[in-house]
C-alpha cells in the first residue's frame, strides 16, 4: 500500500468519514434488525423460523433462487461470450440492453411479465392449455428473478473475458482441439471464479427480491409466498416478530454469500494476472 507522504492527519479524517458512513448506513440497520429478531430470545427466534409459513416461504425462496441461479450461470456466460467473442451488428445496443433490468423499477417488471405471460395473454393461455401455469406460480417467480438478475453474471464474466487473450483459444484450435473443447478446457477454467461470483451475487439479490415477485407470484401462503413478501405481510399485519426472524435469516444468508463472492473476486483477480 502506497500513499503520498505528509497526509497523515487528513488521512484519519478521510478514513474516519468513510467508516462512519458505512457504520451509520449499513452496519447499524443490520445490527438493529438482528436485535429485533432476537428480542424474545433465541427460543422465540427459532420458533418463529420453524412456523409452517416461515419454513414454506424460506424453502420456496431458496428453491426459486437456485433455479434462477442455475439458468443465470449458463445463459449469463453464454451472453457474455457472444458479446465479447462473436461480434455482430447491433452489439452495442444489445450490450446496453443487458443493463436495462437494473434501470426498470421491479414492480414495473412484474406488471410487464403479467401482461406477457398472464392467463389473459396469448402466451399465458398457450402455456396454460399445455398444463403449464406461468404467472401466480413458482415458474413465474423464476422468470421474474431471471429478468431482474440478468446483468449479474454477464457483467461479472465480460471484463474477465475481455482480458483473456484470444490467442489461447486459437492456440487450442491449432493444437487439434475442437471449438467446444477449446471453450471447455481453455476458456472456461479462468472464467469459473467470475461465473461463480456473478451467480452468487444474483442469488443473493434473488433472496431479497420483492417488487417483481409480489406482482407475479399471487402470494398464496405456503405455495407462492416468498420470504421477502412474507416479511412485508407480517409487518403489515402487526407481527414484527416473524418478520424480524425471517429477515435475519435472509440477512445472514446474504452476508455469507457476499463474503464468499468477495473472496472469489480476489481469486479471480489473481487468475488474470
Amino acid at each position, binding site marked *: 500500500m502506497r500513499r503520498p507522504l505528509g497526509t497523515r492527519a487528513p488521512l484519519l479524517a478521510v478514513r474516519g468519514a468513510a467508516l462512519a458512513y458505512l457504520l451509520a448506513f449499513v452496519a447499524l440497520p443490520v445490527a438493529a434488525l438482528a436485535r429485533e429478531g432476537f428480542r424474545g430470545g433465541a427460543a422465540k427466534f427459532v420458533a418463529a423460523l420453524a412456523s409452517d409459513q416461515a419454513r414454506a416461504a424460506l424453502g420456496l425462496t431458496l428453491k426459486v433462487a437456485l433455479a434462477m441461479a442455475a439458468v443465470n450461470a449458463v445463459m449469463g456466460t453464454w451472453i457474455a461470450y457472444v458479446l465479447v467473442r462473436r461480434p455482430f451488428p447491433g452489439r452495442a445496443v444489445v450490450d446496453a440492453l443487458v443493463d436495462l433490468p437494473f434501470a426498470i423499477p421491479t414492480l414495473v417488471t412484474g406488471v410487464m411479465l403479467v401482461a406477457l405471460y398472464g392467463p389473459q395473454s396469448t402466451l399465458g393461455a398457450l402455456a396454460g392449455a399445455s398444463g403449464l401455469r406461468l404467472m401466480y406460480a413458482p415458474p413465474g417467480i423464476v422468470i421474474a428473478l431471471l429478468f431482474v438478475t440478468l446483468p449479474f453474471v454477464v457483467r461479472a464474466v465480460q471484463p474477465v473475458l475481455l482480458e483473456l*487473450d484470444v*490467442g*489461447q483459444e*486459437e*492456440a*487450442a*484450435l*491449432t*493444437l*487439434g*482441439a*475442437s471449438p467446444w*473443447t477449446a471453450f471447455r*478446457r*481453455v476458456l472456461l*477454467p*479462468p472464467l469459473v471464479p467470475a461465473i461463480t461470483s456473478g451467480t452468487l451475487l444474483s442469488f443473493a439479490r434473488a433472496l431479497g427480491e420483492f417488487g417483481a415477485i409480489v406482482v407475479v407470484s399471487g402470494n398464496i401462503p405456503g405455495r407462492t409466498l416468498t420470504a421477502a413478501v412474507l416479511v412485508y405481510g407480517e409487518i403489515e399485519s402487526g407481527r414484527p416478530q416473524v418478520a424480524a426472524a425471517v429477515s435475519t435469516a435472509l440477512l445472514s444468508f446474504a452476508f455469507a454469500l457476499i463474503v464468499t463472492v468477495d473472496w472469489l473476486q480476489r481469486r479471480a483477480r489473481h*487468475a488474470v*494476472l
Partner: protein
Amino acid sequence: MSIEVRHVTKRFGGFVASDDVSFVAPEGQVTSLLGPSGSGKSTLLRVIAGLEPPDAGEVYITGSDATWVRAQDRGVGFVFQHYALFRHMTVAENVGFGLVVRKQKRSEVRARVAELLRLVQLDGLADRYPAQLSGGQRQRVALARALAPRPRVLLLDEPFGALDARVREELRAWLRKLHDEVHMTTLLVTHDQEEAMELSDRVVVMNRGKIEQVGSPDDIYDQPATPFVAEFIGSTNRLEVKLDGDRASVEGHRVDLPPGVLQRDGSGESVAWYVRPHEVELRLVSGRGAIPSDVVRIMRLGWVVKLELRLPSGRVVLVQQTREQVDELGLAPGDLVYLALRGAKAFPAAYSI
C-alpha cells in the same frame, strides 16, 4: 512438406490485407515473411493456419489442398507473438495439450512431453505455471507445445517480438540450431530484417498486401527488385540522378553511371539511386564523379564509424566507414569532403514510392 499459397486475397472491410499473393515455402527450409506492420504478413500466416478464411485463393500444405480444412485438422504448429500459453495449466500440461485432445495414451503423452522439454532445455520446469517463467522460457514452452503433436509445418508469428534484444538474439541462434536438428518446414513472420536474414533460407518481402520480392537473404540485400525492398532492407541513401543522354549528374555534379544502371535516352529524365552507407568512398580532393559535402556528425561505434554528410542541397547522406579509413582522412565535423558513389542500385524515379 512444403507450404504453397496460391492467389490468396483477404479483405477486412475496405482494407486489403492480402492481395492475390502466391509463394512457396519449400520443404525443410525456413522461409520468412518480412514486411512492415500492416503489410499483410500475419494475415497470410493466419490464413495458412486456418484461423482466417481467405476471400479467394488456395492454401496447399504438403501438396494437398488445405484451404477449407478446419484449423484443428490442418496439422500445423503455430507459435504466437504473445505466447498464448494456457495460464491455468502447468508447463507440462501446456506442452501435452495437443496430445491429450488427440486422445493419446497417458504414458505416451508423458514421454513426448519429457522429450520436448529436453529439446527446448526446460527439463526442470515441468510443474511451473507460465506466470512463473521468463519471457524467453515462455516462448520456448510455446514452441515445445506447437511441436508436440508432430505438426507437418511450423508457423511462427513474430515469435521474438515481445522479448528484449539480448534474449531475442539468443533465442534466434537457438532456433536456427533447433531447425538444423529437426528440419521442419518453417514459415516465420517478422518485421525485423535482421531476424529474417539470420534465420531464413528464403525471404518473402511483403508490402501493402503484395509480395515485393522473393529470394535468398543475399539476393534481396544485393539485388533489391523494387525501391521498397532497397529502402526496407538494410539502411540506404536515396539520391536523385538526372540523366542527360549518356551523362548523369547528382546535384549538378557529374557522376559515372555504375554498371547495371539503366541507360536512358532523352534529357531531363531522373532516376532514384539507392546507395548503401558502405558503398560510398570518401576523398579529401575533388575529382571525376565526386560530390562535395560537409561533415555534420561523426559517430564512432568501435570498429565502425558512421558519418552524417550534408550535400550542397541540404540533403543528408549517411556513410559508414572503418575507423582506419576515417582516421587516415583525419575528418572532423565541419570539414569538407568529397563523396564517390560505388555499387548503387537505380530505379526510374516514376517507380519511386
